[in-house]
């Protein structure tokens, strides 16, 4: 499981697309939704005849919040041998979509394959594509609420996040976790002492193994009563041992 340690603030980028590492994977362009149709049409007539992929990304801290990422490939359209195909080029078009107006013109008119990709972005991010012939969910059931790939959508889903983990997940033979310290340790020790005192009182009243429990209770009472709070804080707790020895 991922650890709970969070990275130091300031080491992470709010807009990773602004950082251009030295990777020659594609020529990158950033545009706004208003110029999307014109840009895609121009690129298509330039020879970028294949739409590789349309994807969505969510950057919650950034304005505009979403990115719709188009990858295009320059590929000959007729039959072509390896020599004619040559070294194709890729271009990446990043279209920033604001959160309050998550709508983008559709690319279905230019490439029919944009159909399902745009439906998926609508389904998982909530960005709708104006002019799309069939704008409905594709991956999630039709009556699903919420857009799962948004960063504020919980991983386990809204319903399951509210339900607690099954109880057997909390029980274990091994005393797990970091031992308590400070005030928690003090409180814990007090609880243990009280619980033991109650148990020992009952045992004494029953007269069962009085000598055994008497010795223990004497020890426990002494320990609980005489130890300083600070000492208790330093001493780790072992819930399994009777007299709290490690």
């Amino acid at each position: 499981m991922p650890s709970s340690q969070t990275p130091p603030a300031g080491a992470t980028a709010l807009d990773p697309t602004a950082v251009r590492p030295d990777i020659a994977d594609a020529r990158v362009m950033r545009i706004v939704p208003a110029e999307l149709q014109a840009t895609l049409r121009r690129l298509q007539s330039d020879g970028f005849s294949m739409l590789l992929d349309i994807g969505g990304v969510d950057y919650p801290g950034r304005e505009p919040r979403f990115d719709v990422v188009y990858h295009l490939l320059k590929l000959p359209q007729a039959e072509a041998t390896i020599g004619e195909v040559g070294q194709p080029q890729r271009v990446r078009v990043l279209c920033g979509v604001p959160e309050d107006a998550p709508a983008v013109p559709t690319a279905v008119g230019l490439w029919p394959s944009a159909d399902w990709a745009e439906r998926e972005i609508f389904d998982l991010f909530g960005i709708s594509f104006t002019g799309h012939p069939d704008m409905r969910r594709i991956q999630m059931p039709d009556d699903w609420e919420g857009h799962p790939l948004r960063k504020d959508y919980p991983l386990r889903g809204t319903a399951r996040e509210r339900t607690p983990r099954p109880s057997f997940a909390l029980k274990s033979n091994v005393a797990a976790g970091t031992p308590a310290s400070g005030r928690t340790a003090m409180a814990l020790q007090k609880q243990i002492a009280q619980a033991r005192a109650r148990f020992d009182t009952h045992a004494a009243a029953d007269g069962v193994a009085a000598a055994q429990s008497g010795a223990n209770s004497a020890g426990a009472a002494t320990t609980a009563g005489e130890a300083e709070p600070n000492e208790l804080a330093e001493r780790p707790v072992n819930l399994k041992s009777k007299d709290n020895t490690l």
Partner: protein
Amino acid sequence: MSTSVVPETAGGYHVDVVESDNNRMVLSMGPQHPSTHGVLQIVTEIEGEVVTKASPEIGYLHTGIEKSAENLFWSQASTVIERMDYLSPLTNALCYYLAVEKLLGIDAQIPERANQVRVLTSELSRIASHCVWLGTGGIDLGALTAFFYCFDLRERILDLFESAGGARMHPNYIRVGGLAQDLPAGFLEQLDGVIAMYEPRMRDVRRLLQKNPILQDRMIDVGIIAPEEAVAWSLTGPVLRATGIAYDVRKAFPYSGYDRYEFDTPTRTEGDAYARFLVRLDEMDESMRIIRQVRKALAEPGPWQLTDTKFAPPPKETIALSMEALIHHFKLVSESFRVPPGDVYQAVEGPRGELGYYVVSNGDNRPWRVRTRPPSLYNLQVLKKIALGELIADMVVMIGSLDPVFGEVDR
């Protein structure tokens, strides 16, 4: 055509009753159906046996892999990413790790042997995946013998994955900087056995199927795709190459040393299911050609992992001896490595086409976004077009020839 939709409940199930006065019937093929190659539902409107409209419905295997990957470390995310295209898991892992290595800036430093083994596993995965395609495609047509022959060949390949990586499917054998571990002793002999078995087996399979009049009758002129259509519908892989455009990511954007091996890119021009069938068979032969070249190179030992312990765990023997090694190992396991911010698109030639990952890192120890470019999704979409006016039986052949894997389509 007059229609009235009257939702009824029958025994707790919601039923749509559509009344119409022509001969059209709406038939739902799937999502549980023997010949849909997975959980695909095709809502077809048919007149008799002729399909007048086919709309595939997907999402029945949506697993939220991309969201899971955002909550796992960079090195853990490959466990879920491998489960996308489950017929060639190491291809997914390879593409993902190539993207991560590009972001880390170490892609040029991957050791030679690691690249060779990566190429070996990619090509073995391609053959294994095409074995499943051929076997299940044969079942669709009623040719059950092909299934048994192909799956036996696949078993030998899965044995190789098991001995190298530990598991038949999803071995998680490829890691950042190289491999999880070196090839075990005896692997190369085992590989030689597979290489020796391949040729006679494929000869048998070709003899069974290639000139078989029934197969030819059912596959020739079925699902014809023209090259312009293929580009417009974003088809890649054998489907595109069967229309005549020789685009292969291994040649166009070489990775892992593919430019050093000699292999052809088989293409056809007819664009029908039979052309796709022949292209895939030829591709298997080309893969075996690459494997033979890699086998020669693998005879010499060498490093299989980057020694930089910022990404790769130190050798297990050193952990008990060196404090530094122990600390590095601990750090890698408990909080993994951080990838500098940036985004990258990396593609490989998977058995189905161009498999790509658009990976975004914001500097954290977990991916910010892993967007998959799923070849099967785009390949499957063209079914909406090529099934029109065809028989239902032909539609079954078309799905088989497009070879979709729903772990990838739905993710």
